[in-house]
């Protein structure tokens, strides 16, 4: 039974949404400074405008909606969903004003793609885009990958545990440390540590590739944000292929992999517990999945004769597979060629890899290795039950930071969410078919959007039909928030219309 929301519900949701918008405004100051330094004065004005409007709205909510009431789960979830709906409007303003987006819808799509770390782009003439705007695209991935809410939790720590429900609303279930504020700050510590190491390694490899020091730093920093946050935006339209460097790809592989790891796993590794890598159910699931998929991909590419040299085939196919499985979306091969030169089997593997995704609690999207692992464990347990005597008690456990008992509830929950993901992938694919795209293209792009995979076969482009753009935006948001927050917001809307007093 739904009750109609009262004034305090709206105040809470509006108040904390305002905090998120304020945080986005502060983030926009970074590219504003960069634009001023580089002499990109129109973009400087755009970022200043966007940041000021966001800050003004954020402070207005603090002024007029201030409350000390605690958040409930439903408030947190609804706040997250509303924040993710509203934030791209402010973040998209400097994108529209950059002159590289045909409409506000396209700019909104790009901002959502950035925050949700998808990597699909509607930018026109990316190769002539200003550096500050290009950096903002990548910074949105960095913010979104860690979680917009995590940004807020870190900055506004004085709100304390009251905003803990926001953390779980953004698709994060695991509290690494006892306090969500400490968890959020740990996430940032990991991200910034990797940023220093990763950017340095990329800078060196890009120098080796032939870039000048300043260019190597610019490209390296942006590439890091795209790879670690499994976002997939690139500074050049040809993605990683632009650099024509196996060394750059080798450096990117562990960065993407680190992005696909959960922050809980990072914590274990940070604490020196390296054996967690071998014992964790998710790393095991991903390792098995990678092995099987890589084998299928090699068979597929062997049948097409795309590559005649095994080493070259390994290089490009492995990179694409890691990029897909971590849902990063960086590419060393022109996307069109997945369809025209990679046959059917290899692209199908990429779609499957994107669909499965990375670890729960990471920057990656997709169904998540945890759910796949739990379902497989559940299957093994059920098979054992059938094979053993009736009165035998079958106990199955799994390891995720600690050893845990596998319960029916967990398996059922994982299966339910997996079903939702499949509906999301297929639903977007069906709508693509409606607009006349081939099944392979429609399914590939739908999975890329929903799973945050980001690899594209060229279907997502600026002159894409606008209803499809809206569908992909919805898929990106639903996929990133993993359904529940969106359902909560829709629940509030339903409660307003049909709720009881």
């Amino acid at each position: 039974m739904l009750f109609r929301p009262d004034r305090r519900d709206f105040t809470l949701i509006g108040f904390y949404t305002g905090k998120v918008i304020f945080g986005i405004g502060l983030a926009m100051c970074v590219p504003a400074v960069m634009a001023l330094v580089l002499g990109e004065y129109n973009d400087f004005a755009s970022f200043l405008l966007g940041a000021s409007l966001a800050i003004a709205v954020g402070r207005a909510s603090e002024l007029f909606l201030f409350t000390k009431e605690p958040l409930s789960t439903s408030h947190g979830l609804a706040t997250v969903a509303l924040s993710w709906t509203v934030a791209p409007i402010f973040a998209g303003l400097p994108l529209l004003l950059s002159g590289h987006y045909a409409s506000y819808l396209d700019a909104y799509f790009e901002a959502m793609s950035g925050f949700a770390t998808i990597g699909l782009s509607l930018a026109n003439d990316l190769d002539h885009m200003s550096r500050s705007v290009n950096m903002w695209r990548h910074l949105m991935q960095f913010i979104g990958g860690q979680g917009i809410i995590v940004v807020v939790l870190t900055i506004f720590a004085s709100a304390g545990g009251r905003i803990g429900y926001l953390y779980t609303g953004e698709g994060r279930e695991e509290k690494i440390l006892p306090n969500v504020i400490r968890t959020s700050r740990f996430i940032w510590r990991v991200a910034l540590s990797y940023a220093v190491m990763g950017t340095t390694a990329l800078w060196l490899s890009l120098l080796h590739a032939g870039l000048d020091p300043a260019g190597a730093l610019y490209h390296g920093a942006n590439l890091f944000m795209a790879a670690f946050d499994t976002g997939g935006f690139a500074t050049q339209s040809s993605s990683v292929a632009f650099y024509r460097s196996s060394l750059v790809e080798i450096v990117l592989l562990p960065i993407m992999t680190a992005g696909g790891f959960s922050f809980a796993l990072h914590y274990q590794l940070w604490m020196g517990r390296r054996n967690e890598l071998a014992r964790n159910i998710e790393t095991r699931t991903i390792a098995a999945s990678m092995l099987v998929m890589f084998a299928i991909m090699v068979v597929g590419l062997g049948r097409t004769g795309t590559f005649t040299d095994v080493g070259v085939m390994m290089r490009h196919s492995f990179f694409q597979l890691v990029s897909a499985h971590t849902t990063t979306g960086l590419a060393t091969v022109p996307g069109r060629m997945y369809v025209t030169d990679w046959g059917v089997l290899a692209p199908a593997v990429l779609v499957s890899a994107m669909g499965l995704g990375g670890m729960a609690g990471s920057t990656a999207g997709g169904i998540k290795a945890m759910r796949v692992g739990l379902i497989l464990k559940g299957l093994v347990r059920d098979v054992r039950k059938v094979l053993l005597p009736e009165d035998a008690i079958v106990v199955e456990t799994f390891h995720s930071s600690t050893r845990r008992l596998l319960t029916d509830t967990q398996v059922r929950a994982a299966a339910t969410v997996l079903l939702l993901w499949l509906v999301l992938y297929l639903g977007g694919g069906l709508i693509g078919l409606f607009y006349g795209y081939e099944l392979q293209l429609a399914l590939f792009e739908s999975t890329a959007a929903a799973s945050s995979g980001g690899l594209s076969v060229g279907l997502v482009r600026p002159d894409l039909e606008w209803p499809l753009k809206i569908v992909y935006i919805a898929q990106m948001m639903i996929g990133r928030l993993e359904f529940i927050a969106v359902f909560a917001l829709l629940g509030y809307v339903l409660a307003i219309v049909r709720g009881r007093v």
Partner: protein
Amino acid sequence: MNTLGGHRKPVERVKVLLGAVGLLALLGAVVGIGQVLRHPDRPTGVPEEQLEGADPRDDINCPDPLPREGEPRDVNRGSSSVVDVSSNNLYDCPQSYDGQRVRFRGEVVGALLHRETGVWIQLNDDVYAELIGPLPAHRDYRGGNAGVGVMLPTQLAEQIDFVGGPQTRGDVIEVEGTFHRVDPSDEVAVIRADTARLTTSGEPFPDPVQTDRLVAAFLAVLLSGGMVVAERVVARQR
């Protein structure tokens, strides 16, 4: 939907509707500001029929039809005559052009990547390269970029003065060389060129400062500054 404990007094639906309209008006205002302050719509003067782009739904007509997966491919090993190609030709039909001597023209973009064996460049042959020019000098949106990677001998790369990027239109060069689905240097879908000539010199293209945007930004800074001060004053009083 459960809310907080204590006495509940739901907000009237009319007020909720007004609030929603207010929120939409606020967001609409942000969108409206963006629309008003966009770059001017300057005509490019290029006929529409020259600007039609590729659609993923278009049929691909390759010189050699693609066999079923698993069947041996009769990969073209190229004839000695030169074929004019576009990036669309090469990516749609890589098997047809593999090993083929091709002629390709495009704008140099991004950066020159000097290696021991030569220089990697990215040549874009999209409409921004030679027809309508780079954004944001106009508002003729024609999609993303399209181009091919080219390996040039070092001495041929020395004629390149302008590399396309922010506020710079790159040199347009025409190269002749062999297209490889997989190059001897292990790169995918690139041209290994042995001749190159400059056809159009690049140049910086100005992005004139939009005064109205600067004014709007200044006003927005005043607004946000005022809100920050007001909020701080009220917060201290709480």
